[in-house]
Each structure stands twice: as structure tokens, then as C-alpha cells.
């Protein structure tokens, strides 16, 4: 048994060291460097300062933080609302159709991220097919631009994250016992009632995972707003990139990142605790 422990130690050691050095320490560095003064080249000077944190009180920030928050929440909500019926439908299909549909949903997920954003730029551009179709229907004025606003950002976000939401919900739904739904209907429940009070609780774990894997990257979105957004639809991610590449102020970028990090890790810890409490409750029930 001692040998087993020792071999485990050596199996885990390389990845452990790698992740500590290149993942954990850098994350902690972000918090530390927010308190370092900046030198004239945008690098780090000696000593410590609170200046950067004080400078965060920029008047445009409440707007940006609010936009980052609501866009993330709305994108997550829409993705889940779409992903639940899609996962349900996937489970109800015959094996052949199921595999085909699943493949069709996974392919965009693995297609280069930039190409997906680029496709939307082509799709929404002013002389493009979609724009002209809407003009022809009389919905759009020829001068209206579908790109470079918050709605374009939101649409592309939802587009990008739908597969993220479908996959975890489908993984749980696949194990769901669908005869329960039929039983509920036999007992007189309407389709919708059975769906809401039998199916939804049955896949709640998948939904929780989906919320996490959509909401967290959505908070950190940078490429989408920087390519299809405009100056009035900036998100926190844009500001971080700007302070690294345009304003060349690393401590400032760290302070902004530290804010984002709190927004990311707090829901993660909260979800972890909820799951833990639920699990221990379930255990008590079973005993």
C-alpha cells in the first residue's frame, strides 16, 4: 500500500507542479500586481501602491460592469431555454438521427472561434443576404447597421455558447428515465406540467453545469465585443485588453482582472457549496 501511495505521488507530481507554476501562481500574481506601481514603459516599478485601485473609479466603469453582467446573464438564460428542449428532443430521437443531430451541434462548437465570429460579420453586414432580406420584408431601413452594437454582441455570444449549454444538459438527460414522463401523463398531468415538474428537476444537475460553463466565459468575453461590438458596447474584457495593449499599464489590467476574477470565482464557489449541501441532503434521504 505504501508503494501504491508513492507511485500515485509520482503520477500526479508533474501535472501538479505544472498547474501550480503556470496556473495557480499566475492567478495569485494578478491580485498582487494590482498593488504595484507602473513604470514609464507600462511595466512594473519597485514598491507598492494603492493608486491603481483608486483609479478604478472611472465614471464609465459602472456602465461597463453592468453591461458585462446583464449580457452574461441574458446570454446564459437564452442558451439554457434553448438547450433544454433541444436536449429533450435529442434523447427522443432514434440512435441514427440522434448521432447526426449531435454531430451537427458539436461541429460549430469545435469550429475555429474566430471563424464563427467572422461568419457573423459576413452574415450581418450591410450588403449581405440577411440584411437585404430584412430590408425586402420592410423590417429594416437600408441604413440600419446590424453590426457594432450590444445586440450583435449578445447574438454572437448566444451563438457561441449554445453548444456549451446543450452538451452538459444532454449528458444528464440521456440518463433520465423517460418512462417517468409517460407515467406522469398517464396519471393525468399535461405535457407541459410533466415536463416542468418531472423532467426539469431530473436534469437540474446538467442545468447547473450549463449555467457555470456559459456564465463564466460570458463574463470574460473579449473577442466577441471587440469584433462585432462598437464603442458603446464595450465589456470588461475589452477594458482589460486595452490596458495591456493600448494603454500599456499592466497593474491597471491586473486590477480590472482581479475584479473579473471575483465575478468568476464567487459563483463557482457558491455553486460548489449548493451542490455539496444537495449531495449531503440526498445522502440523508437514502439512509
Amino acid at each position: 500500500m505504501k508503494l501504491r501511495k508513492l507511485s500515485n505521488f509520482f503520477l500526479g507530481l508533474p501535472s501538479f507542479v505544472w498547474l501550480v507554476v503556470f496556473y495557480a501562481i499566475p492567478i495569485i500574481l494578478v491580485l498582487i500586481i494590482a498593488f504595484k506601481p507602473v513604470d514609464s514603459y507600462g511595466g512594473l516599478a519597485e514598491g507598492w501602491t494603492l493608486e491603481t485601485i483608486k483609479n478604478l473609479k472611472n465614471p464609465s466603469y459602472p456602465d461597463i460592469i453592468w453591461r458585462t453582467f446583464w449580457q452574461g446573464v441574458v446570454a446564459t438564460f437564452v442558451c439554457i431555454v434553448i438547450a433544454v428542449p433541444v436536449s429533450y428532443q435529442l434523447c427522443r430521437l432514434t440512435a441514427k438521427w440522434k448521432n447526426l443531430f449531435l454531430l451537427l451541434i458539436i461541429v460549430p462548437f469545435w469550429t475555429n472561434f474566430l471563424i464563427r465570429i467572422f461568419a457573423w460579420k459576413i452574415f450581418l453586414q450591410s450588403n449581405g443576404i440577411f440584411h437585404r432580406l430584412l430590408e425586402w420584408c420592410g423590417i429594416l431601413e437600408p441604413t440600419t447597421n446590424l453590426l457594432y452594437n450590444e445586440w450583435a454582441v449578445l447574438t454572437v455570444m448566444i451563438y457561441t455558447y449554445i453548444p456549451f449549454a446543450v452538451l452538459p444538459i444532454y449528458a444528464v438527460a440521456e440518463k433520465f428515465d423517460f418512462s417517468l414522463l409517460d407515467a406522469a401523463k398517464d396519471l393525468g398531468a399535461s405535457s407541459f406540467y410533466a415536463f416542468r415538474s418531472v423532467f426539469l428537476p431530473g436534469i437540474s444537475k446538467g442545468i447547473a453545469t450549463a449555467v457555470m460553463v456559459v456564465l463564466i466565459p460570458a463574463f470574460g468575453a473579449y473577442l466577441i465585443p471587440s469584433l462585432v461590438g462598437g464603442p458603446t458596447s464595450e465589456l470588461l474584457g475589452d477594458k482589460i485588453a486595452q490596458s495591456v495593449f493600448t494603454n500599456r499599464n499592466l497593474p491597471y489590467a491586473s486590477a480590472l482582472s482581479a475584479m473579473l476574477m471575483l465575478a468568476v470565482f464567487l459563483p463557482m464557489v457558491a455553486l460548489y457549496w449548493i451542490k455539496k449541501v444537495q449531495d449531503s441532503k440526498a445522502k440523508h434521504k437514502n439512509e
Partner: protein
Amino acid sequence: MSMSCNRRSRFPMLVTLLTLIFLYAPLIVVGIASFNKSKYGGKWAGFSWIWYEKLFQSERVWEALANTLIIALFATVISTILGTLAALALYRMKSKFKGVYNALVYTPLVVPDILMGISLLLLFVMIIKTFGAWFTSLTGIPFELGMTTIIIAHVTFCMSYVAMVVLGRLQEFDKSLIEAAQDLGASGLYTFFHVTLPVIMPGVIAGALFAFTLSIDDFVITFFVKGAGDTTLPIFIQSSIKHGRDLPMLNALSVIFLILTFILVFITQILLTNKPKEKK
């Protein structure tokens, strides 16, 4: 399709089909545009292979492709080895330390890439500031942001995906197989190479394919840790979009990417659905 039960609502099917249209409409438009002779998109000016020809003649694209593949190759090999070892360790671990190790392996999966990018940039800046001059005076090699830092960053985010896929495979297979081999007197190494490794191999290959795709796909993290002159395909695409340059060529590139992705996903799916023997 299974619509036999008349009480079953058609609503989920409708949502599914609309979702597929939503997912593919932009991609199809790009696909059509890639064969459009017109430079400015929009109106159809006739069928043409010209953008594909231009793409294959562009030196910048080939350079970016070479860099992308070199990075992906190194990142895949290193992250597959580290990720597989991590999965094996997690699978066998029972101590209290498992929670910490688990968090270390799994949280990188959900951390926004911009956070990973900036945190690695800060680390590299600190290391270069502290040891750069000393290293260069010792070896004569300049110590700066470049291909090495990109590869390190890619290994870091690919590793967790590999570990997740391999661990999934491990959890599906029967632990008693290993115990049986050991009861029959097989050594730890023998069991590993003749029992464990063959069983997890499809998971390892699928993990490596994931890692490869992720590495080729990455823009944000690469953008943060790259040196001034480095380009990869995503970097090339981003700068083309930003500057509105070579856009018709990007249509053609998108189509090629889509076809390659289809093939890769197809292979991965086959590997992952080919499950190990059911446990009883």
C-alpha cells in the same frame, strides 16, 4: 422520426430545427461567399475558385499555418502526457488532498481565457524581468515572449481537457480488471502497459485530438503571451478582420477549417462512443 406518440409535443423538435438553422445559417452564407467572384461580398458576381487560389499563394497564411502546427504539436504531446498522468493520479487518489488537486485540474476548464492570458503574461513578464538578463548573459540566447511562452500557455489549458476525457474513460472501466491482473502476480508496470493503457488508449487519443483542436483554435491566450512578430492562424484571421484586409480569402479559409473540423469531430466521436466492455 419518433413522433409516434400523438400526445408528445412538437415544440422541442421545432426548437431543435430552429437552433440548427441558427447555428448553420452564417456558416452557409460564408461558404457561398467563398465561391463568389466579387471582392466586396453581397451581390453574386459568378462562381470562382480565385479566393482559394489566393489563399494557397499567400505566404503569410503559410507562415501562420506552420507556426500554428508547430505550437499545436508540442502543446498536444506535452499536455497529453501530463493530462493522462493527472487522470491516473486522480482516479487512484483517495486522500484529502484530492479536493485541492481536483480543483487545480478542473477549474482551468471554466476560467475565462482572458484571465488565463493576462495571468500568464504577468508571470512571464516577472520571470523575464528577474532572470532575463542573467539568462542571456549566461547563454547568449535572448529570453523573451515568443513560441516557447505560447507553447507553455497552450499546454496549461489543454492539459485539463485531456485529464477530463481520460478520467471519463477510466471511470467507465472495471477496476477489478487491474486487481485481477495484480492478483495473478503482474507487476505495477506490467499491469499499466498491458491492462490500463490499452483500455484508456481511445480516451488518450480523443484527449489528444481535443488538445490539438483547442490549440489550433486559441486566439485570446496566444495574443497575450506572444512576442511582437509571432503570428498563428487565429492571429492572422483576427488582424485581417480588424483591418478589413483579405476578407474574401477568409471565407475560403473558413470553409477549409469547417471541413477539417467535421473530419476531426467525426473521428473523436467514433473513438469516444466505442465504449469499453460494460461493467457488471
